């Protein structure tokens, strides 16, 4: 089974107590592991000014998670929990594994190109001079 990589960002109301946020994150982690997922990274970005008013709030507490999953169902369940949670005012999930695959393709292609002809870091100046 292919493993998928996701980015999950959600925003809590700025006045939410720290413990509630920690509890929420713990619940999400548990939900993820129950469905065969793994939480790779948890980042709390803290309170930030929002670009526009969301639910009458001008600022929000941002939390960022990186998840690995084998089933797509996990994401659906996580989003459902977030939708229902009171302190959460916005969330966004992004699927990243295809993106990373594309990135790898470019990196590999560039490496192959560099390996094919001996390139100096200064560029191909000499070749151009020789041609003209």
């Amino acid at each position, binding site marked *: 089974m292919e493993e998928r990589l996701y980015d999950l960002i959600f925003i809590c109301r700025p006045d939410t107590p720290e413990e509630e946020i920690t509890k929420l994150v713990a619940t999400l982690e548990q939900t993820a592991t129950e469905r065969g997922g793994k939480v790779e990274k948890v980042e709390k970005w803290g309170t930030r000014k929002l*670009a526009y008013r969301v639910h009458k709030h001008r600022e929000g507490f941002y939390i960022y998670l990186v998840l690995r999953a084998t089933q797509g169902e996990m994401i659906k369940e996580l989003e459902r929990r977030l939708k229902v949670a009171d302190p959460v005012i916005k969330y966004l999930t992004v699927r990243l594994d295809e993106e990373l695959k594309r990135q790898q393709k470019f990196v590999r292609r560039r490496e192959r190109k560099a390996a094919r002809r001996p390139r100096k870091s200064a560029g191909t100046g000499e070749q151009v001079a020789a041609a003209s």
Partner: protein
Amino acid sequence: MAEEPRQHSPAPPGVRREGPPGGPRRGKRQYFRKKKVCRFCVERVDFIDYKKVEMLQPFVQDRGKILPRRMTGTCSRHQRWLGEAIKRARNIALLPFATEL
């Protein structure tokens, strides 16, 4: 190669900068504004991260609109990725959808 008699007003709109012409582009001011290359291609960026607002900000107008390619000199591929990233950032309130001047 025969030398063709050159006219004063250049007929084919090219990659050069034009002032307000009377001919080819009636009314429009510029054709290809910047000769500069795509910033992302130069840096060899493979992924435009929607989370990095600092990277996206220069490509967004004051009003929140996305700048056209001919203003920023971005290549089509990166412009596409840029648009996607900006829209994602907007959805998570990192960038505004529209601001009043």
